[in-house]
């Protein structure tokens, strides 16, 4: 595989970057631990490189007979607002309430 050199490149910076993409932030000790574990897992997974997949199509659905599913776009009764909001950690005037998004000028 042409990217074979990439497989060992799991640095703490990379883990920090990926965590940021996933909206997580890790403590120093977790960074060290996850870096080690992810390296080990990815090293194992690198065996996939042995498989010759030249000309093999990737699986998009396990049942090859499946076609795209369409239906008529007909309006139906939506979940009532009250029920949709019933699990909200914070709400106001029929909306989900979140911390301020727009910075003060």
């Amino acid at each position: 595989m042409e990217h074979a050199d990439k497989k060992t490149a799991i640095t703490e910076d990379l883990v920090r970057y990926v965590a940021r993409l996933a909206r997580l932030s890790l403590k120093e000790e977790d960074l060290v631990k996850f870096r080690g574990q992810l390296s080990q897992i990815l090293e194992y997974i690198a065996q996939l490189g042995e498989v010759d997949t030249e000309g093999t199509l990737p699986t998009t659905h396990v049942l090859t007979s499946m076609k795209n599913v369409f239906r008529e776009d007909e309006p139906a009764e939506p979940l009532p607002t009250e029920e949709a909001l019933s699990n909200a950690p914070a709400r106001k005037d029929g909306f989900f309430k979140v911390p301020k998004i727009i910075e003060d000028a």
Partner: protein
Amino acid sequence: MEDISSSISDFKRWLEERKEPLADTARALTDRIAVIDKKIKAFACLDSKNVIKRAQNLDKAGRRGLLRGVPIAIKNNICIKGELTTCASHVLEGFRPPYNATVIEKLEKEKALIIGGANMDEFAFGSSCETSYYGPTHNPWDTGRIPGGSSGGSAAAVAAGEVVAALGSDTGGSIRQPASMCGVVGLKPTYGRVSRYGLIAFASSLDQIGPITRNVSDCASILEVISGYDEKDSTSVNRSVPRYTESLNKDIKGLTIGIPSEYFPPGIDAGVKSRIDGAIDVFKKLGARTTRISLPHTKYAVSCYYIIAPAEASSNLARYDGVHYGYRSGKAVSLIEMYIATRNEGFGEEAKRRILLGTYSLSSGYYEEYYLKAQKVRTKISDDFREAFKSCDCILTPTSPTTAFKIGERTDDPLKMYLSDIFTIPANLAGLPAVSIPCGMGENDLPVGLQLMASPFNEETLIKAAHAFERATDHHKMFSGQKKSG
């Protein structure tokens, strides 16, 4: 304690003799669960009042229904309207779905008594039930050991006789592996056979809901009830549902069973190996033919799975951000800080590990090397099976390389934990139906399970073969409640 739940028919007889409203029976059943569960902890969040309320509704609804009054435990990732459904995660704290999963609607139509809150690994990430936010479930055969996972609570509740049956979900073995380790029957249907509507998504291309029961006949009955096309799940398949119970009590003379050499590696547990060899002999005596087959890409299945499943999971778990439901961190001032703090505090360690792994393999620059490659290898694994089913009707393997391991034994070694599912993962990758049934006791008097796999939509073959085996043996009569120690 009296074993009232050895089968649906035995339970119905017991229920009939009580001559009381189901609400009273429900009270007795939840009391009984509370006693047994002190040791087993099969339920993460059982709400007895809700169970009794549901029984009262059943009392008003007449006497018809295939599963009337039969207590069925539900894994805590299947939505039950108004019932705490948290996937055993802190991040879904307090979540009460405003709707029922389709499988719940179908069970309720047959008047089953739904018992929610069966424990599981957090978001079904695990093979031991140890990643649950509520703490581990204990194996009824030896409470110092894990029940398997991720549907460990469902399997343990059935094995301990707390309920007659349970629903689990299976993404890489999460029904079959705990069924095997708890000495009960667990079936993962063909991908698309059972609606996933209301199943909180882990890996959408692999997840299936299925039954966990004490015997094959009950497995067939429940599968028949929960199967079928659902327009609310665009991946469910519009194909009629066979009467699975009609595949019971059938002769298996001439059935060809494939034995793949890749599932009997040199390091396999000796107790497991000897039970499986014994089972193969039973099938031969029943007139089945066995044939050696090869599934050459088996050794890549775990790698393939640990790219695809975490990738899909990282995407499915992006929704837990503290806005719409569940837990929200109180620390944050800005929106982005709130997302991050909520997810940091809400997810457990294994969930974070999989989110990181999945985010990495989908991230720019790595997608082709990992995700796309894994989907191509997945095609190869499916092709292996397609080729194998040209020469056999079903495939027999061990369900798990070992019997139940000790609590804490593998928690520090994620890769070793992932390899627990080496024999169950391929069926998910290829979308095949597969069942685990008890085939005796291995080392330390712990149950061993054998797995049968068939081609897509051939659940009938599995039931036919599994039931023939069950009738010829006594393994399904083993009951953990009669074990003196533990």
